[in-house]
């Protein structure tokens, strides 16, 4: 017990610093992933077979291969094309990974909105893009919040793999520390604790947001 406490105190500064890196990685990659996800969700519902095929291929490959393989492959691929710091290359790779899952979340949410909404909007003279932007997407985003929150939590934990690109986020910091103090058990326990706290805080925030949107929009009835 005291050993754990000691490791915790000794590395507090490093882990706090690492926590900000983990958070930045998570937010940057997931923001990008939402953008990617939205684009590919539109590809899937576009009715265009080529776009649909591209989206389907992307999603199949991402879902069908391990993240660590994608991360390494994309990292070495990306740095061949552009010189990027490990943090940004890692964020980009994480975004491409999460984007596939988020595309499916958005597609599902958009398609779950009653057809009558689009028809009512079009019958008022709205163009398809306007109806999407003003009527369908706001409702779809709201429905996507619970699965998106889930994806955020997965993304937060997945960001640990970027340690292997040499980024000093939480897991990377633990890797480094345990090699120095020869107490891997205690060090990884502390690292896990940081992730757990972040996930708990995040879950709380998502629940609050969901509740707030529900009140604002007066529920989900027609």
């Amino acid at each position: 017990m005291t050993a754990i406490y000691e490791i915790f105190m000794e590395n507090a500064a490093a882990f706090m610093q690492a926590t900000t890196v983990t958070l930045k990685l998570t937010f940057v990659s997931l923001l990008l992933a939402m953008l990617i996800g939205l684009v590919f969700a539109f590809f899937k519902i576009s009715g265009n077979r080529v776009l649909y095929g591209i989206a389907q291929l992307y999603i199949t490959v991402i879902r069908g291969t391990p993240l660590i393989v994608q991360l390494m492959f994309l990292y070495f691929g990306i740095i061949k094309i552009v010189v990027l710091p490990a943090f940004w290359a890692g964020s980009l790779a994480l975004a491409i990974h999460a984007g596939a899952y988020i595309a499916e979340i958005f597609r599902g949410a958009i398609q779950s909105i009653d057809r009558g909404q689009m028809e009512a909007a079009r019958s008022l003279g709205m163009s398809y893009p306007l109806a999407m932007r003003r009527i369908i997407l706001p409702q779809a985003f709201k429905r996507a919040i619970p699965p998106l929150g889930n994806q955020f939590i997965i993304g937060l934990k997945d960001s640990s793999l970027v340690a292997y690109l040499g980024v000093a986020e939480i897991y990377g910091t633990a890797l480094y520390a345990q090699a120095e103090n020869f107490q891997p058990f205690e060090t990884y326990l502390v690292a896990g604790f940081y992730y757990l706290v972040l996930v708990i805080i995040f879950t709380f925030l998502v629940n609050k947001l969901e509740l707030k949107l529900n009140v604002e929009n007066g529920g989900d009835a027609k």
Partner: protein
Amino acid sequence: MIKIKGLNKYFGSLHVLKDVDFAVDKSKVVVLIGASGSGKSTLLRCINFLELNDSGRVEIMGKNIDPKKDDLNKIRQDVGMVFQHFNLFPHKTVLENVIEAPIFVKKMPRQEAMETASYLLEKVGLSDKAGVYPCQLSGGQKQRVAIARALAMNPKIMLFDEPTSALDPELVGEVLLVMKELAGEGMTMVVVTHEMGFAKEVADRVFFMDDGRIVEEGPPCEIFNNPRHERTREFLAQVLN
């Protein structure tokens, strides 16, 4: 106002509208009746191009419309539609539902849109509900908001697809009342309904559809009292009992 000639519509191999001829003059109210699946909704939706016909002509306000060339968004601004299930925007208040299209489609200044909306909400008897969300309304109130929302675009034609079918019986009257007022003001209307009382009282002409065809048409007194066609007689016997 509306002139349809030789219209055919298929869903895959299903022939849903068969050589339909249909015309509505300005300020007239036409009621479409017929059994479920006879193609009433589809015909209505061909008038504002939510469905595109496979052959035949659709003329709106004297203009033959070619869906490939003409701007359908522009045409739909003149053809309002009211749906069986209201289709109000649940994430917007009553007022926001009504001002949405005038502001974003017509580019009307917000102030002006709000004034029009207040006037329309008063007209349908819902001034006090401007700030609430659709989920807090009764079915009849929702449908009246939907009518106000369509009217906010200042359409020349209004289409109603079974506007009272999803309502509790005691709420039907308030919606029909608004529709009667609208008819009285000279709105050109096409109404699909099972409310035969409304048809008798308000319609200038009644069209009876059966299996994708318009089998019979005429003034309501003729259709209801002297139906010429066997199918019309059977249908009326069914709905009037």
